[in-house]
């Protein structure tokens, strides 16, 4: 390929990427822009990104005072943190066993994990709801956390990562006197950091943003997760006060964006499953 062809290719490639970027970013830009405007400018026919009269202070103050936004954020942290921690406790040993130990029925179990991966979260919602009702856990943190503790995706992702760790490393560890649990904690976990981080980002984003399940099991406002909180916000304000609403959504989206930016490099390492190089 000659230089001009390469240049043209570059321009085309970037044009396509920029187009995609604009489409994906536009709603967010609009969200931030709206969160800065007073009501009369939000509905003005004139399109402008920046407001003439800044209403940022009022909007954000309202967002934090009209509804307990901080409480929702805290709920979000408790629920997503709780889910991720328990998911790790369950999926790491499972993944290690499926990747590295030989036992009867292993392949069948792994097939079941794969099938679990295909089932959409909404499918078992009703039975789960009934089960939580039977044990009296509806409308609690447990209702938000427990159903997600067994993560087929987590088991699958970590198993694929553990597969890339050479067997000799475990053999060496066994000869050095480590038991299976210690191999997992001392050898596998430190190596699996990038994969765990990737899993963490995916799990936290999914459950932070989950609207469907909290909507079903939560009635008490104090237990609302951030997305559910925005719903309460709308009810409270009869759905007209878009400035503070957008301010609220900016606040609940920001932690995720920050989390991803902080973990970006290692996240990509994790999902590409960069293997071991001793």
């Amino acid at each position, binding site marked *: 390929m000659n230089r001009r062809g390469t240049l043209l290719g570059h321009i085309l490639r970037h044009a396509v990427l920029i187009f995609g970027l604009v489409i994906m970013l536009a709603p967010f830009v609009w969200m931030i822009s709206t969160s800065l405007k007073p009501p009369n400018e939000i509905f003005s026919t004139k399109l402008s990104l920046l407001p003439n009269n800044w209403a940022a202070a009022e909007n954000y103050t309202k967002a934090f005072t009209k509804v307990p936004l901080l409480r929702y954020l805290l709920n979000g942290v408790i629920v997503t943190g709780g889910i991720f921690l328990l998911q790790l406790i369950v999926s790491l040993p499972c993944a290690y066993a499926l990747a590295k130990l030989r036992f009867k029925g292993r392949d069948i179990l792994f097939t079941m994990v794969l099938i679990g991966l295909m089932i959409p979260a909404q499918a078992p919602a009703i039975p789960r709801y009934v089960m939580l009702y039977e044990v009296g856990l509806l409308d609690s943190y447990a209702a938000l956390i427990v159903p997600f503790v067994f993560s087929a995706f987590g088991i699958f992702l970590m198993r694929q990562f553990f597969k890339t760790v*050479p067997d*000799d*490393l475990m*053999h*060496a*560890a*066994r*000869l*050095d*006197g*480590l*038991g299976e649990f*210690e191999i997992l904690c001392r*050898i596998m976990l*430190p*190596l699996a950091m990038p994969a765990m981080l990737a899993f963490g980002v995916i799990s936290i984003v999914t459950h932070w943003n989950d609207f469907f399940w909290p909507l079903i099991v939560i009635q008490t406002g104090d237990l609302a997760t951030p997305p559910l909180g925005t719903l309460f916000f709308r009810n409270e304000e009869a759905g007209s006060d878009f400035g503070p609403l957008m301010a609220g959504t900016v606040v609940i989206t920001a932690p995720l964006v920050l989390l991803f930016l902080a973990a970006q490099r290692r996240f990509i390492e994790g999902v590409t499953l960069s293997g*071991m*190089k*001793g």
Partner: protein
Amino acid sequence: MAAISFENVRKSFGAVEVLKDVSLDIADGEFLTLLGPSGCGKSTLLRIVAGLERNDAGSITIGDRRVDALPARDRDIAMVFQSYALYPHMTVAENIGLPLTMRRMNAWQRLPGLGALLPGTRAARKSVAKDVAEAAEALDIGPLLQRKPSQLSGGQKQRVALGRAMVRHPAAFLLDEPLSNLDAKLRVQMRAELTELQRRLGATMIYVTHDQSEAMTMSDRVAVMLAGKLQQVAPPRQLYDDPETLAVAEFVGSPKINVLSVAGGFHAVRPEAMEVVADDAPGAIAGRIRLVEHLGSESLVHVEVPDVPLPLIARLEAMSARDPKRGEAVGLRPLPGRVLKFDATGSRIRD
């Protein structure tokens, strides 16, 4: 240190029988090499000693303990892997120290943070550090202790792996092709160092390799393994000069031994036991030179002989008066008393 013995050990993976009735006694302090082509079962046998695989039948004794049912960590055995198998997230010092940490500190003392507060932890850590430093000194890797494995060269990784094996003074060392990832020059150097180390430690070592020059140069005895069976166990010299079977004669020695079909079996002659003579000399096999390889100290003469599938090879000293040329018609004649005779099944016939 301890003697190791195998009695009628068998192992199958599914329908494939990998070890067919292996019996072998290794003396305390012996350097024994398991030599064989890849897939012959030698690595499996080593893994069975280590406890990483279970034997289907037979017994394994280390010292005076029967170990078949013991897990790897209770067998008091250290292993060096072809891939070195160093823990990538630990420093050299931590890598070498881990087997000691596991043995000298209990589960509570090993906990990060909390462990440091418990009685005895400091003393245990000190004793580990001291032994690690000693091992590192012996292997000349003292200055590398704080590095991670990814910052080491192949030879250095090899030494760290050795350090991790020797630091706890195990009953025996198992080495699984430890030199095959090194470049040729370093391999020769490490060969000498390993032998020297083994003599110094007085250690029992089982060394697995497919490289016969390693087997011949390092071992007290070599066990040749072909297709899951031990063919012959003997000191290197004897293995070369006095093979029990045609298969051993063919596997050991480079270039390969010359094999001639005769009535009722085979005659085999080492290349250096072949004389290059005139094509009409009495007792000579007449042929035509196809290739002459000059190796400096010697030359290899490949001679094509009618009705023999592979060219016969003769090894000539560089100083030899003859200077054979390609295409020349010559005769090859075995030196008197240097023909090895085998019957049709490949077993040695002794006169």
